[in-house]
C-alpha cells in the first residue's frame, strides 16, 4: 500500500466535513464537521511527517489540536449563549443582523 493512501483519506474526510458545514442546519453538527476538517488536516500532517522523516509535521498537528480545543470551548459557549436567547441552535434562526 502506498503511503499516499493516507493523504487520499485525509482529502476525502476534509471534503465530507466541508459539505457538512454547508448543508447541515444544526449549529452543533456544523461545529462537529469543522472538527472533522481539522482532524483530516492533522492526518495529512502526520503522514507528511512520516514521508519527510522528521517530527515537524507532528508538532504542527499537536498545535492544531490545541487550537481546535480552544475553538471548541469558545464556539460551544457561543452556541449556548445563542440558544439561551433564541431557544434554537439552528444556524438559520440566528439572522438578527440581516433584518
Amino acid at each position, binding site marked *: 500500500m502506498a503511503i499516499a493512501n493516507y493523504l487520499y483519506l485525509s482529502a476525502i474526510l476534509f471534503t465530507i466535513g466541508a459539505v457538512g458545514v454547508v*448543508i447541515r442546519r444544526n449549529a452543533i453538527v456544523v461545529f462537529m464537521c469543522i472538527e472533522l476538517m481539522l482532524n483530516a488536516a492533522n492526518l495529512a500532517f502526520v503522514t507528511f511527517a512520516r514521508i519527510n522523516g522528521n517530527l515537524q509535521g507532528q508538532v504542527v498537528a499537536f498545535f492544531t489540536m490545541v487550537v481546535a480545543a480552544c475553538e471548541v470551548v469558545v464556539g460551544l459557549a457561543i452556541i449556548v449563549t445563542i440558544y439561551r436567547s433564541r431557544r434554537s441552535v439552528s444556524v438559520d434562526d440566528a439572522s438578527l443582523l440581516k433584518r
Partner: protein
Amino acid sequence: MINFALDIGKTAAPEAALFYFLAPLSVFAGIGMLIVKKAVHSALLLAWIMVSLAIFYIAQDALFLGIVQIVVYTGAVMMLFLFILMLVGVDTSDSFTETIRGLRAIAITAAIGFGGLLTTLIGRATFNRPITGLTSANSEGNANGLAKELFTQYVFAFEVVSALLITAALGAMVLAHSQKTRSPFAQRDLSIARFRKDNLKDAAGLPSSGVYALHNAVDVPALLPTGKAAPTSISAVLEARGDMIESSKFQLQQEEEEK
C-alpha cells in the same frame, strides 16, 4: 506520460490491512454524519472517526499524537459536544428543508469538484527523495523527540499557544456567564406574597401531610379536626398521578372500638 502513481514509499502488509479495514469505515461514518437526522448520532459517528484516526496516527509512528487524539478528542472534546447536546436538548432533530433553493445540489457538486481536485493533485505529485520513515527521528522515543522539537525550535509558539488557551478559557467564562435579572425568591418574599393574597386562609402556610393521621408519609393527606382529609396537604402531582393513599386507613383503631 503522466505518472499517476505517487512514488512515496510502501507500507508493510499489516498496516495495509489495517488501513483497508478502517479507512472505508471512517469514510462511511463521515458520510453518515451528513445523513443522520439526530445530532447525537452525528456525534457518535464523529467519535468513531476520531478513534480510527488515532489508530492511524499510532500506525504511522506518531504514538504521542495517537494517545493525545484519544484523550483530548474522543475523551474531552466529544464529551463537551455531548454535554452541550444534552443541555440544548437531544430531541431537536435537524430540519432538512432547504432554506436556499438548490443549496444541497450545489454543495455536493462543489464537493465532488474539490475532492476530485485534491485527489488528482495528490495522485500527480512526485517526491524526489527516498522515504526515510520516522525510525531515526523516533530513536529516543516519539514523546522525547516531540518534546525536543517543542521546547527548542517551537518554544515561542508553545508559549503563544498557552496564552491562547488561557484566553479561550476566559472567553468561555465571559460568554457563558449570565447576569441575574432578579434575586431568587427567599422565605421572606414567599411569606410576604402569602399575606398579600385575597384571603388569609393560607397565610400560615399549607398544612403538611399526615399531621393528624397515624401515617405521616407525603402521599397521605392530613386529617382535619372534622375527620375529613385535607386536599391541600399533599402535592397536586401525587393526587393527579393517583398515588394518594386514603388517610382513613391510618386512623387509630381504638376510636372505632369505642364507637
